[in-house]
């Protein structure tokens, strides 16, 4: 056996995992390895990539369903659905600028359950995973869910595997719900708001009847990094509306009037909106920062307190997505800075993820919040239920699991 395994089909995948199970050989499980810079480093003699399990097997636009091999490049999926006027609902981010990795696969995007700005209104990546096929740590092939939009038959292992970062099973095929892409997008931009005011404006926008599908705030320094926003000169608070053109025109006008108390809003057209939201999605305003990057998820109104706490603790760059509920933070790759981020997230009752840092730091700290003892015990038992010998991405999420 070589050190790099790239099974060409699901049967080969099952055989290879079965062999590794028999030998007790740990495997680094990945797609295109674009997210290896995230979370804890994995110590494994062999790498198992699902990238060869590639190709769209089913796409039925009228049924809003697409199934593809886990190794299919996400861009290929996005292009296929775009050709039929549809889109991937959760707007998954592309971290190649942030992490320096290659093009991500569908399996990687699902295994990491990473969602973009639309998450705040339309749900996470995992919400649209209708079915998976996968190979568990014993080498057994299992499926959960299916190719229909509503399915409550048995335990929902789709959601458990989405976001499990390849630690429970190796995804081989994924069935996604997709939706018609909007005909038009527009973005209202409020200028110069302080964080608290910005989050209040975004709460008003998200609490309006106008179906706002993106809600972000970038301080001046971060806005300056985004060409579509830099010309506005200062902090920007963004609210996106996506729908049929006539609806977008009507609703953005109404929203603008409703938000008048926060200042006169500028309007970004469709093209500028696409550029701006891609930047927010991919955390481009932080990509050029040296050091570590964290994602902190809190109740939206707590976003400003998190930003304040980290800015007091170190030289932090930050911005908000999800109406303030997702705080992107960049700062020095030190344990002290990490502790400050964790403390801020904890104080706000939320969670964190250390998304980018040198390997030494990622190996030394809790990259995601440790679980309470009773839950941690369940985590260990569920891990063992899929992967009794602990061969799949050992230690990727929690040390020793």
């Amino acid at each position, binding site marked *: 056996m070589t050190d790099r395994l790239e099974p060409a089909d699901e049967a080969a995948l099952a055989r290879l995992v079965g062999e590794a199970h028999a030998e007790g050989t740990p495997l680094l499980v990945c797609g295109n390895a674009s997210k290896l810079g995230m979370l804890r480093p994995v110590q494994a003699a062999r790498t198992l990539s699902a990238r060869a399990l590639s190709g769209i097997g089913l796409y039925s636009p009228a049924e809003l369903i697409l199934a593809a091999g886990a190794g299919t490049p996400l861009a290929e999926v996005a292009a296929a659905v775009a050709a039929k006027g549809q889109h991937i609902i959760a707007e998954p981010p592309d971290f190649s600028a942030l992490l320096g990795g290659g093009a991500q696969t569908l399996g990687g995007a699902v295994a990491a359950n990473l969602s973009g700005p639309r998450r705040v209104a339309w749900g*996470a990546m995992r919400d649209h995973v209708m079915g998976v096929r996968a190979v568990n740590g014993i080498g057994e092939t299992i499926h959960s869910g299916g190719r229909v*939009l*509503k399915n*409550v*038959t048995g335990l929902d292992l789709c959601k458990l595997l989405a976001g499990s970062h390849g630690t429970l099973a190796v995804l081989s095929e994924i069935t996604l719900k997709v939706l018609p892409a909007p005909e038009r997008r527009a973005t209202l931009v409020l200028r110069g708001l302080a964080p608290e005011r910005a989050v209040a404006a975004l709460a008003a926008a998200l609490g309006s*009847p106008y179906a706002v599908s993106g809600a972000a705030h970038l301080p001046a320094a971060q806005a300056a990094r985004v060409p579509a926003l830099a010309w506005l000169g200062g902090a920007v608070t963004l609210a996106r509306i996506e729908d049929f053109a006539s609806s977008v025109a009507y609703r953005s006008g109404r929203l603008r009037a409703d938000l008048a108390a926060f200042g006169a809003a500028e309007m970004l057209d469709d093209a500028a909106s696409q550029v701006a939201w891609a930047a927010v999605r991919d955390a481009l305003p932080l990509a050029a920062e040296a050091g570590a990057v964290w994602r902190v998820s809190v109740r939206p109104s707590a976003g400003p307190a998190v930003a304040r706490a980290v800015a007091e603790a170190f030289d932090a760059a930050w911005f908000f997505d999800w109406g303030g509920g997702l705080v992107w933070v960049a700062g020095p790759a030190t344990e002290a800075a990490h502790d400050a981020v964790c403390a801020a997230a904890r104080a706000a009752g939320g*969670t964190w*993820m250390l998304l980018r840092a040198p390997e030494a730091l990622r190996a030394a700290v809790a990259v995601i919040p440790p679980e309470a003892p009773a839950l941690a015990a369940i985590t260990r038992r569920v891990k063992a239920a899929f992967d009794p010998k602990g061969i799949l991405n050992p230690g990727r999420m929690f040390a020793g699991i």
Partner: protein
Amino acid sequence: MIAQPAPKRDVLARRDSIVAGLRALLPETGVIAEALRLKPYETDGLSAYRQVPLAVVLPETTEQVAAVMAFCHREGVRVVPRGAGTSLSGGALPMEDSVVVGLMRMNRILDIDYADRCAVVQAGVTNIGITQAVQGRGFFYAPDPSSQLACMIGGNVNMNSGGAHCLRYGVTANNLLGLKVVTVEGEVLEIGGAHMDAAGYDWLGLLTGSEGQLVVVTEVTVRILRGPEGARAMLAAFDSNEIAGACVDSIIASGIIPVALEFMDRPAIHACEAFAHAGYPLDAEAMLIIEVEGSVAEQDDLLEKISQICRKFDPISLKISQSAEESLAIWKGRKGAFGAVGRISPDYLCMDGTIPTSRLPEVLRRIGEMSMSYNLQVANIFHAGDGNLHPLIMFDANDPASFEKAEHFGADILRLCVEVGGCLTGEHGVGVEKRDLMGVQFSETELEQMRRVKSAFDPGWLLNPSKVFPLKADAA
């Protein structure tokens, strides 16, 4: 009839001491053990199955639930969690040796946060109760099962319930942020919170729809949404199921996702019209109810676009509601569908498979053939946008042979759903009803995988016994 395993004799023998132990943990009125007062808990929405439990407890706090769970765990007593008992799959059916933990007294709304668009409610709050608490500010809780006046959020979470509007707003799983739960050992766990997305494993996703197999839910943090400016319905009727199905495909392919897209076949139309006098076209073979949202102008625009699509399929009638009252009338028949069928036949089984929408005409044709060969009437109601099919099989409960036939007919329909690429249940859950059909959809390897997950939460298999998983391992 689906067989239930024998009760644990040793538990039955200790009944008095178990009841006394429970009484020590709860307020006076919180423990029910008298035969007459246990009767209301013997069944749920699948009323053909009945079994009086050993006792019922009605805790008022998470701490009381935890105390009961710890006690039952120590005593080796099985526990059946229960909300309103509206499950259509026998999910809340007790066993003779089990303690029912009823959550109905935990019915308080603990917090409403409009800025963060979430509410924290106890498990026994009704589905409609959440919307009622927030609608004064124009907000609502999106999943709207037809049973929403009665069913409780804890039950909704455990069944991952849907509703008529889940095409646009998703099912329960898509509208939750956090849970407070009690494990079988009596430990209290916080899952998620007011923030989005877990950092570790997605426990929230796994527990949703777990049918009381993994934990007891005591509190739920739900997303609340601002309602649209308005909504309006239209009705389109066609000459055949095929044509109506093709029209549904065409609407979705046009890029319009209505908030609701409901399909009724001829028997359903007739039953509902006789009941509700909603003005449904009795000469139609199939009918669609389509609802859109937005400002009046947006509604006009969307309804016109949809009408244009419908006209391409030669509808035999097309009616766009002009007012809220007319929309209500259009919905009245659909919402009363169960009651309407109940008038034709007091006893019916409500099935719940999902199919790929493209297979609808074929599936309805084959259900029609089965209806002939079983000699039982069936009316089909269908959440057309998402493929969730509800055949209502009418039978006579006074005739055991008729019930037996209805169960076989139902099982055949569900097998057909799986055969065409669908699943056994879209929203009502497996419960007792579909437990023994699980092998149609899952391999033994897959069932074992799910059983191991169940064991990770409930090593002694004390929680909601003999549901979901085919019996074999349950006895372990």
